[in-house]
């Protein structure tokens, strides 16, 4: 091998060896550290929420707590104002046209003119004289315009009749009178018929023509195509050229398929009525509106503008004006404009002023004269829905009616004792007020069928025993107005007249009740002076006022919290720990601590309890108050199984049990003062094996 390459190879080997020598990082050594771990204090605020505590002049603590049992909103729960909307539907086929008559006359003079020379001339020259008229045949008249356009321009009838009556005012009889009636524009034949004999000055001769399916124009031509006369039979008759042949047209029972006409102003709907609410008992004379609206919904498929006018004269708004809605609905258009009634007051005494639950309303729907011809068909219609909807009152006056309110429920109990999970406690004097606040302007009484407390964890249930309350009809004051104030009725419960102590000493987490309220048990004794407003409620509550003094035996506080001390948090090197608990305690309670460590499945791993040693209670002085703290020092060795339990635990359950410690000079029921505190400090004497891996 070339020596140069040998050298390079050796260099590479040396480098390889050197760089592969790595320093290990698992060096360790033992140490011992003394350090405080946690510190804290337990005060009265940790036992009961500060919002429930009240401090007296002597610094003693009183628990004040209000538990609401019932909060019944009468307007929401018992009173419902139904919707009052009404629907009207108007269509062309429901329209009926009035019978119409028109008369056309053809005078003798006009006939003479049409006859011409010599007969016509003779007739004219004979005017005012008598003359003999010879028989004539084949006579006719020129078309005569009949103008019915004031009624319609054209109309197609689905039904109807035209009666043609000819009255002969001429001095001679007529026969074979052929009458022809045609439309002016398209010349469509309406009628062509023969009157065979029309006597002079006799009864009119009538022909009836069925108009079904016929389209008739407003302008028509009437023409006598032919008429004959037998003459005067040689007799002289008085000739008056003003004598005439009278043709009367009468249209009746007409129903239209369609029509084109200049409609005059006319109401399609004209409705006014009292609307009465069925309240099922209450008789209201006035209603204030919290929310709700007038609904005026119009679908106009008529080819003309419709004007809608809706009035509720008894509904007065904040500005003093009544409900007056005027809207126009364009042809083939829809109107949907709710009118907000918030803030309005409605007089519910109706149009006559002596009714109840009733309001007056008026609606009209009209076509205004426009001078423009409008085409209307059978399909055209007008649909109107109007009324009051979604009415939520904020005030009702009158007579609330006579009814019962049954309420039974279970509520969350007095959470003052939420943190206590076990133990026996005996309280001193407890005062609980059962307070009934009646927000209704109506008389009534309340019967408490049952009232009780339960502890769902222990299963204990205690019913209130109080002969003054349970099962008794308790008259309640009615609310007053101007200014508004509920009527309050208070019933005191204490250890003398009830077993209220027993209810609280089970640390209830639920309260249950069964209550009946009778409204107006004596009827309308206040003559429609009842009222209810939006804030009117029936409220029943328990007001607790309790000096914080008690006897306790193993009164237990318990709390669970997560523990996530693991190897990753540098606890691998922790060896044995001598835990010392120092306590300075002014509570006249001794305490034993037990912390149970559990895994994620809830399995107990081990517990830390300082050997069962307790924290010493503060010693009561002659005035039954603790002035100097009692000190405690207790130890616990944490090693082996316990240490593993702490490191492997997912949660820990910490429990403190308290026992009151009185002195012979003082009652077993000790009073708690606001300055009482239990200061706790945990110090660890920790054997720790350091490792360079920690760095």
């Amino acid at each position, binding site marked *: *091998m*070339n*020596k*140069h390459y*040998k*050298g*390079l*190879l*050796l*260099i590479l*080997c*040396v*480098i*390889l*060896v*050197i760089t*592969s*020598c790595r320093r*290990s*990082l698992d*060096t*360790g*050594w*033992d*140490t*011992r*550290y*003394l*350090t*405080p*771990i*946690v*510190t*804290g*204090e*337990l005060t009265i605020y*940790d036992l009961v929420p500060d919002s429930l505590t009240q401090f007296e002049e002597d610094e003693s603590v009183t628990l004040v707590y209000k538990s609401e049992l019932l909060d019944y909103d009468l307007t929401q729960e018992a009173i419902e104002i139904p919707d009052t909307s009404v629907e009207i539907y108007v269509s062309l086929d429901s329209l009926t046209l009035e019978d119409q008559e028109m008369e056309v006359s053809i005078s003798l003079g006009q006939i003479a003119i049409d006859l011409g020379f010599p007969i016509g001339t003779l007739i004219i020259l004979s005017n005012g004289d008598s003359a003999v008229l010879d028989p004539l045949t084949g006579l006719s008249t020129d078309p005569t315009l009949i103008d019915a356009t004031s009624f319609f321009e054209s109309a197609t009838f689905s039904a109807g009749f035209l009666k043609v009556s000819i009255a002969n005012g001429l001095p001679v009889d007529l026969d074979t009178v052929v009458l022809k009636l045609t439309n002016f524009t398209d010349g469509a034949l309406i009628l062509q018929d023969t009157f065979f004999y029309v006597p002079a000055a006799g009864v009119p001769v009538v022909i009836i023509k069925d108009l079904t399916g016929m389209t008739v124009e407003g302008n028509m031509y009437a023409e006598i195509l032919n008429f004959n006369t037998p003459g005067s039979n040689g007799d002289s008759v008085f000739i008056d050229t003003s004598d005439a042949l009278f043709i009367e047209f009468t249209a009746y029972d007409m129903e239209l398929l369609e029509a084109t006409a200049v409609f005059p102003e006319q109401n399609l709907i004209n409705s006014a009525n009292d609307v009465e609410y069925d309240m099922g008992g209450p008789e209201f004379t006035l209603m204030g509106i919290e929310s709700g609206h007038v609904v005026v919904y119009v679908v106009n498929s008529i080819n003309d503008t419709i004007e809608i006018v809706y009035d509720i004269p008894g509904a007065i708004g904040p500005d003093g004006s009544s409900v007056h809605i005027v809207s126009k609905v364009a042809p083939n258009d829809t109107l949907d404009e709710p009118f907000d009634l918030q803030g309005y007051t409605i007089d519910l005494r109706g149009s006559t002023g002596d009714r109840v639950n009733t309001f007056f309303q008026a609606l009209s729907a009209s076509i205004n004269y426009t001078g423009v011809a409008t085409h209307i068909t059978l399909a055209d219609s007008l649909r109107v829905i109007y009324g009051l909807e979604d009415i939520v009152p904020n005030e009702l006056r009158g007579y609330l009616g006579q009814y019962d309110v049954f309420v039974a429920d279970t509520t969350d109990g007095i959470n003052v004792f939420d943190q206590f999970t076990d133990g026996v406690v005996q309280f001193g004097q407890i005062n609980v007020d059962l307070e009934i606040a009646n927000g209704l302007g109506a008389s009534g009484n309340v019967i408490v069928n049952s009232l009780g407390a339960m502890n769902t964890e222990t299963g204990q249930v205690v019913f209130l025993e109080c002969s003054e309350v349970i099962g008794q009809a308790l008259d309640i004051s009615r609310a007053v107005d101007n200014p508004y104030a509920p009527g309050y009725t208070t019933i005191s419960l204490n250890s003398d007249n009830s077993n209220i102590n027993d209810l609280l000493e089970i640390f209830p987490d639920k309260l249950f009740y069964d209550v009946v309220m009778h409204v107006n048990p004596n009827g309308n004794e206040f003559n429609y002076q009842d009222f209810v407003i939006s804030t009117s409620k029936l409220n029943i509550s328990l007001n607790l006022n309790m000096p914080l003094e008690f006897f306790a035996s193993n009164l237990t*506080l318990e*709390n669970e*919290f*997560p*523990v*996530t*001390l*693991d190897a990753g*948090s*540098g*606890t691998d090197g922790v060896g044995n720990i001598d835990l*010392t608990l120092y306590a300075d305690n002014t509570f006249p309670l001794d305490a034993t601590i037990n912390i149970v460590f559990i895994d994620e499945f809830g399995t107990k791993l081990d517990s830390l309890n300082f050997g069962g040693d307790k924290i010493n209670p503060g010693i009561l002085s002659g005035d039954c108050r603790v002035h100097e703290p009692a000190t405690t020092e207790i130890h616990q060795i944490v090693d082996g199984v316990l240490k593993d339990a702490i490191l492997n635990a997912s949660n*820990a359950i*910490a429990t*403190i049990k308290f026992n009151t410690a009185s002195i012979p000079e003082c009652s077993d029921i000790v009073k708690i003062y606001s300055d009482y505190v239990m200061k*706790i*400090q*945990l*110090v660890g*004497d920790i054997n*720790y094996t*350091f490792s*360079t891996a920690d760095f």
Partner: protein
Amino acid sequence: MQRKLLCLSILFLIIIKARANPDSTQIQLTPLTFFNNGSTTTIFGIFDPLNAPLGRNGITVVAFSDLYTASNCFSTDFIQNFFGSGFITEEMKDNASEKLTNLNTIGVDFYNGVWLMMASKKNADNIFLAGIEYNFEESSQFTSDLFHLVFYGNYDYQNITAQLTDSKFSLTSVMEYKVGMMKIFDDDYNTFKIGATGGLVQGLSGLDIKTRYGTLFTAPDGRYLDLEYDFDIHTSGENKPSLTSFIGAGFSFDIFGKAYFQGPEISVNVMMNDIGAVFWNKDPLQYSGDSTLHFEGIEINNLFAATDSAATGNTDSLLEIIGIQKGEKIFSQALPSRLNVSVSKNIGNSMYFTLGTQYIFNTPYKPLIFVQGGKTFNDLKLTVSANAHVGGYGAFNAGLDITKRFGNAIQIKVGSNSLLGLVAQEVFTGVGAYGSLSVMF
């Protein structure tokens, strides 16, 4: 490790037994270029361009490694266990404790590299230098109380205030890529060498801890701790060191010179290495604190509302409790610059005596004074020397080294400047070893 050494040994045997091609060029050696009288600028195994042999063709490749660790209090067995995954016993701690002074030191220097020396074809007195080095330096200055707190704990310090002021710790781990020149000239009688290299520093990891002021009082029974502190910690961050990334960058220079006075046969060597700094700019972290802390335990306002932070080991919460501020701040770290000065006197044709000194700037290194004496056995192409020193990170120590030439192309040097720490581990507080392989072309 053993396997690798075995492989190396086998390979070494193969290499030395392999015979050169008889047609290979014979190298004509001159005293200056062939074989230095054995003296070196320093008793450490770092690259010494002033005394490195140059091959006949003017090319030499030098690979070296130098490990040195010492302390004024930690014995060798303590250091070995600390760095070598051992357990530090109470006896070791007590042994170190007896040697403690007010301020104590410990340091670890680990230098490795490969250098190329190439004389110019036109002028052999101009020598081109290029090299790659990996340098690891770790040094600490600490009070006796800090030692006690770390290695024993504070249990024995109840009612005592532990002093921590002026404790410091520094660590730099860098790669250096350098090039340079060295020139040889003479005045027809005396010979001089002068050179310089410079280059890029690639920072791998850095740590700098300075405690300007610190005390810890432990109350009796551990009821409270009072901590006063004013310190800064700068780290290069949590990025994993990698040769392919630059979490820090900087510059480094070496300057060196040698004068050989032929008359008195005295050589004066001066070498200053690693003048420079590294700038940590990729997510560096800074922790600082200047405050006092009275600690009676983690406060729990409601004992029955203990939260996660009270029941878990959360380092961030701990930092908040102590009042340490954390931030990201680019910082620069001066490299531990090494100054070596030595005077060497030839005695006869084969012996020499050297007196020198070394100092490492920016570390708690005390000036180190060394002496070295050696003899060269020309027929064996072997130089043996002995050295002794006092100062540095530790106290007195001594060592030996052997330089052996194999043929004309290979020179191996192995030795130690702190053999006593290997021989009497409980007594002496330093250990070191170095080696180099020079291949000459």
